[in-house]
C-alpha cells in the first residue's frame, strides 16, 4: 500500500520474538554447560528485543493513522483448502503499548533472575539438580532456567505481535508449555507434608487446567475460521464480517438459536479464563507459586496471565459484535465475581507469594469486568499498570524470600549451612540427614517474617511502593489511575452491580496489601531468619536494581492516563494513553469516548484505598509487634492466631482453604477421570473388548478342534475301516498259502474234480 512511507524500524518487528528464541536455541544446543554465558545470552536476547521494541513502539506512538492502517508483514504460510492463510506480524497501537511493557518487564525480570539464580556463584557441593540451590550457590540447572524464560519471552512477544488467531494460539501455547516447565522447574523437590503440592504437580496442574480453556478456545477459533474463512484480525474485524457473525445464528441443543458471534466469543473467552486464571479455572495459579520467584513474576505479571486479558482486548470487536450481548455480560460477570472471590481468599493466606497470586487473580478479574462493561481503554490501562506493579511485588517478594533464606543460614551458623528447609532427597548423597534435627522452616510464610524494613531497606521501599500501587493509593500511584478509571466507567455507564463488587474487591485489596506489608516489613522479627535477613549479598545487586526501575514505573506509568476531565490534575494531562487506544477503538468502531468526570467513583476509590490500608495496618499492627521469643523452643510464630480468625470463625477456615476448590476438583475431575480410565481399561482389556477378540479366536480354535476330532473319528475311520477289512480278509486267506507247490496242486486237483464232477452231475 504505502510501503515507502513505512518507517524502516518496523521491518525489525520480526526480530523481536526471534532474538529471545535464538537465545533459547543457543542455550539448549550449545552453551548449556556455561551458566554465565547462558544467562548472558538470554539477557542480551531479550534486552535487544526491548530496545528494538521500544523503538518500534515510540515510532508507532508518533505516527498518525497507525490505528487505521496497522503495519503488517505477511507471508502466505498455510495452504488450507483453496486458499492460503497468511501468517505475519502486526504493529498497531495495542501491540505498541504491549511492546512498551512486555520486553521491558521481561528484561528486568531476566536481570533479576541472574541474581536470583545465583549466576556467578560457585556450585554448591550438596546441591542437586531439580532442587533449589542453597543460598550463596548457583542453581545447578541455571542454564535450563534461562533457556526456558527466553522461550517464554518469545511466546509473549510473539503473542502481542501476532496478526492472526492461529499464530496467537501458537505463541499462547508456547507460553503454556514454558509455564509448565518453569513451575515444575524444581522437579525433584518434595515436601515433608505430603498434602503440599510439589512443583512437578503444580506444573502439571497449571498446564492441564489452562489446556481445558485452550481447547474450548480452539473450538471457538475453528468455528470462527469456518464462518469467516480466515483467522486474520484484519478479516475478522471487518464490519460486514462482524455484522454477519452477529446476525446469523446457530442452533444449540437445549438453548436454541444463538448468534455465531456470541458462541464464538464465549468459547474464546474460555481460553482467557484458563490462561488468566479466572473462576472456575483459577485453581492453578496459586499453586504455580511453586516455581522460582522470577517465574511467578513472569507468569503473573508481564506475560502469561495478561495474555488472556490481551486476547479479549484484541478480539474485543468480536466480543462486542452483539451489543450488550450475553458474551459481554458473561465476561463482566466472571470478571467481577473473580475479582471479589479471589480477594477474599487473599485475605486469609499466609504465604507471601500466595497472597500476591490471589491478588493477581483478583486484579485480572478487574480487567475482565472492565472489558465486560465496555471499558476497553480502562482495561488496557489497568493491564499495563498492573504488569509493572505486580512484577515489582513478585520480584520484591523473591528478594524477601532470598533475604530470609540467607538469614536462616546465617542464623543457624554452620549447622544451618547444611539445612534443607524441606525434606531432602531420600537415599542419595544429599543433606537430608541434617534436616531432621531442625524444624522445617518456610521462608515464604509471612508469619515467620516481621521487621524486615530495617534489614532490607531497598526491597522494603520498592515493595511498599508496589503495594501502594496495587491498593490504589490516591493520586500518586499508577494503580490508582487505572482502577479509578474502571470504577468511573462502571459508574458512568450505570453498571451498579459491577461497580459495587469491584469497590468491595478494591477495599479488600487494600486491606490484604496493608496486612502483607505490616506483617513482612514492620514490627519486630519473629524468627531468627528474619532477625538475620539482609540484602548485602552480591546477588542482591542484580535483584534490587530491577526493583527500583519497576518502582518508578509503578508510579509514573499511571500519569500517562490521567483523564483530562480530572479536576486540577487533568489540566496538566493530555491523556496520551486514551488518545492512543481511542484511535484504535475508533478504527475498530468501538465506542470509547473519554468519560465526563464523576465524583462518586473518585471518592469511592480514595475511600476504599485509604480505608483498606488503614484497616489492615490497625488490625495487624498488634501481631507485627510481637517479637521473637528466644529460648522458648516450643514457641513458633506459626502458632499465632490471625486477628481475623476469631471474628470470622468458620468463614476464615473456608477462606484459608480457598473455598475447598482444590479438594472438589480433585475428587470430581482428577479422581473421576482416573476411575473412568481404569474402568475403561478393564472394560477394554479384561472384561469386554479383548475378551471378545480372544473369544472369537477361542471359538475358531474350538471349531477347528471339533473338525479335527471329526476328521480323526469319522473320515479317517471310514478309510481305515476299509483297509482293516481288507487286511483281515488277507490274514484269513493266508492260511491256505502254504508255499508248498504240492498243496496247490492238490487244491487244483480237488477243484478240478469238483468242477468236473459238477459238470457231469448237474443237469445241462
Amino acid at each position: 500500500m504505502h510501503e515507502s512511507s513505512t518507517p524502516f524500524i518496523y521491518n525489525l518487528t520480526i526480530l523481536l520474538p526471534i532474538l529471545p528464541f535464538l537465545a533459547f536455541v543457543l542455550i539448549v544446543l550449545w552453551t548449556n554447560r556455561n551458566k554465565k554465558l547462558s544467562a548472558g545470552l538470554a539477557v542480551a536476547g531479550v534486552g535487544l528485543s526491548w530496545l528494538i521494541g521500544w523503538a518500534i513502539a515510540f515510532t508507532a506512538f508518533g505516527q498518525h493513522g497507525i490505528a487505521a492502517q496497522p503495519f503488517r508483514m505477511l507471508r502466505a504460510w498455510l495452504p488450507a483448502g483453496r486458499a492460503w492463510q497468511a501468517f505475519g506480524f502486526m504493529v498497531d497501537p495495542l501491540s505498541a503499548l504491549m511492546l512498551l511493557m512486555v520486553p521491558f518487564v521481561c528484561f528486568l525480570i531476566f536481570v533479576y533472575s541472574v541474581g536470583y539464580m545465583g549466576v556467578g556463584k560457585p556450585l554448591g557441593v550438596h546441591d542437586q539438580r531439580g532442587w533449589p540451590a542453597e543460598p550463596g550457590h548457583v542453581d545447578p540447572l541455571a542454564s535450563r532456567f534461562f533457556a526456558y524464560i527466553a522461550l517464554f519471552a518469545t511466546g509473549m512477544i510473539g503473542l502481542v505481535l501476532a496478526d492472526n488467531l492461529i499464530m496467537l494460539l501458537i505463541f499462547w501455547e508456547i507460553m503454556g508449555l514454558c509455564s509448565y516447565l518453569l513451575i515444575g522447574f524444581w522437579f525433584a523437590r518434595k515436601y515433608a507434608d505430603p498434602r503440599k503440592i510439589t512443583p512437578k504437580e503444580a506444573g502439571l496442574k497449571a498446564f492441564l487446567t489452562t489446556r481445558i480453556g485452550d481447547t474450548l478456545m480452539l473450538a471457538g477459533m475453528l468455528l470462527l475460521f469456518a464462518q469467516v474463512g480466515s483467522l486474520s484480525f484484519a478479516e475478522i474485524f471487518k464490519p460486514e464480517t462482524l455484522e454477519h457473525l452477529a446476525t446469523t445464528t446457530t442452533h444449540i441443543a437445549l438453548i436454541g438459536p444463538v448468534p455465531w458471534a456470541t458462541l464464538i466469543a464465549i468459547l474464546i473467552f474460555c481460553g482467557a479464563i484458563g490462561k488468566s486464571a479466572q473462576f472456575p479455572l483459577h485453581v492453578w495459579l496459586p499453586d504455580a507459586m511453586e516455581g522460582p520467584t522470577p517465574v511467578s513474576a513472569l507468569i503473573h505479571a508481564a506475560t502469561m496471565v495478561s495474555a488472556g486479558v490481551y486476547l479479549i482486548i484484541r478480539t474485543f470487536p468480536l466480543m462486542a459484535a452483539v451489543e450488550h450481548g450475553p458474551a459481554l455480560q458473561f465476561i463482566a460477570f466472571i470478571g467481577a465475581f473473580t475479582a471479589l472471590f479471589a480477594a477474599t481468599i487473599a485475605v486469609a493466606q499466609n504465604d507471601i507469594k500466595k497472597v500476591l497470586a490471589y491478588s493477581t487473580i483478583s486484579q485480572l478479574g478487574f480487567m475482565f469486568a472492565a472489558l465486560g462493561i465496555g471499558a476497553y481503554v480502562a482495561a488496557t490501562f489497568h493491564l499495563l499498570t498492573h504488569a509493572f506493579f505486580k512484577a515489582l511485588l513478585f520480584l520484591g517478594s523473591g528478594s524477601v524470600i532470598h533475604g530470609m533464606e540467607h538469614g536462616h543460614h546465617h542464623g543457624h551458623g554452620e549447622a544451618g549451612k547444611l539445612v534443607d528447609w524441606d525434606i531432602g532427597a531420600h537415599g542419595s548423597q544429599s543433606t537430608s540427614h541434617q534436616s531432621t534435627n531442625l524444624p522445617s522452616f518456610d521462608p515464604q510464610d509471612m508469619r515467620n517474617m516481621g521487621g524486615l524494613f530495617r534489614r532490607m531497606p531497598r526491597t522494603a521501599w520498592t515493595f511498599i511502593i508496589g503495594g501502594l500501587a496495587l491498593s490504589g493509593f490516591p493520586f500518586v500511584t499508577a494503580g490508582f489511575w487505572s482502577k479509578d478509571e474502571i470504577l468511573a466507567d462502571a459508574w458512568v455507564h450505570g453498571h451498579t452491580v459491577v461497580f459495587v463488587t469491584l469497590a468491595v474487591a478494591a477495599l479488600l485489596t487494600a486491606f490484604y496489601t496493608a496486612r502483607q506489608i505490616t506483617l513482612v516489613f514492620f514490627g519486630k522479627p519473629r524468627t531468627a531468619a528474619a532477625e538475620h535477613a539482609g540484602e548485602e549479598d552480591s546477588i542482591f545487586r542484580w535483584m534490587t536494581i530491577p526493583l527500583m526501575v519497576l518502582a518508578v514505573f509503578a508510579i509514573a506509568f499511571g500519569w500517562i492516563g490521567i483523564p483530562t476531565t480530572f479536576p486540577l490534575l487533568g489540566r496538566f494531562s493530555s491523556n496520551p494513553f486514551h488518545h492512543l487506544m481511542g484511535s484504535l477503538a475508533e478504527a475498530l468502531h468501538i465506542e470509547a469516548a473519554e468519560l465526563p468526570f464523576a465524583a462518586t467513583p473518585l471518592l469511592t476509590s480514595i475511600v476504599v484505598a485509604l480505608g483498606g490500608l488503614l484497616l489492615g495496618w490497625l488490625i495487624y499492627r498488634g501481631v507485627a509487634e510481637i517479637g521473637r521469643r528466644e529460648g522458648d523452643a516450643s514457641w513458633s510464630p506459626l502458632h499465632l492466631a490471625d486477628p481475623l480468625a476469631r471474628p470470622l470463625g468458620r468463614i476464615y477456615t473456608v477462606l484459608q482453604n480457598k473455598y475447598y476448590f482444590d479438594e472438589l476438583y480433585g475428587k470430581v475431575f482428577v479422581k473421576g477421570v482416573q476411575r473412568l480410565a481404569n474402568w475403561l481399561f478393564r472394560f477394554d482389556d479384561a472384561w469386554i473388548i479383548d475378551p471378545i477378540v480372544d473369544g472369537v479366536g477361542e471359538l475358531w480354535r474350538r471349531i477347528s478342534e471339533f473338525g479335527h476330532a471329526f476328521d480323526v473319528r469319522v473320515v479317517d475311520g471310514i478309510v481305515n475301516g476299509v483297509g482293516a477289512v481288507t487286511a483281515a480278509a488277507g490274514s484269513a486267506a493266508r492260511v491256505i498259502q502254504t508255499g508248498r507247490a504240492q498243496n496247490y496242486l492238490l487244491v487244483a486237483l480237488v477243484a478240478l474234480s469238483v468242477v468236473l464232477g459238477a459238470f457231469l452231475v448237474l443237469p445241462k
Partner: protein
Amino acid sequence: MVPLTWYLILAAALFCTGLFGVLARKNAVAVLMGVELMLNAVNINLLAFWRYTAPGELIGQAFAVFVITVAAAEAAVGIALFIAIYRLRDTVNVEEIDAMKG
C-alpha cells in the same frame, strides 16, 4: 486189434501214477519223475487217438515229439533248479521249500 480203450486205460493209470508221485512224494526228483510219467501218459493218449481217429495225418506224432522235447527241457531246467536249491538249502525235500508261504 487192441481196442483204443486199453490204451486209454494204460495212459490213465500211468497218469494217475505220475500224479500220485507229484502230489505225494517228498523228494523233488521223484516229483519231477512223476511229472515225466504224466507227460508220457499224455503222449500215449496222443498217439492212441492219432492211430485210431486220424491216421492219415502226422499231427499226433508231431504233438508227441513236442511234448518229449518240452519234457526234456523241463527236466533239464527242473534238475538245474533243484541243484541250485540243494546248494542253497542243503535239501530237496519239497515240504521244506516253502519260501512262498503267505
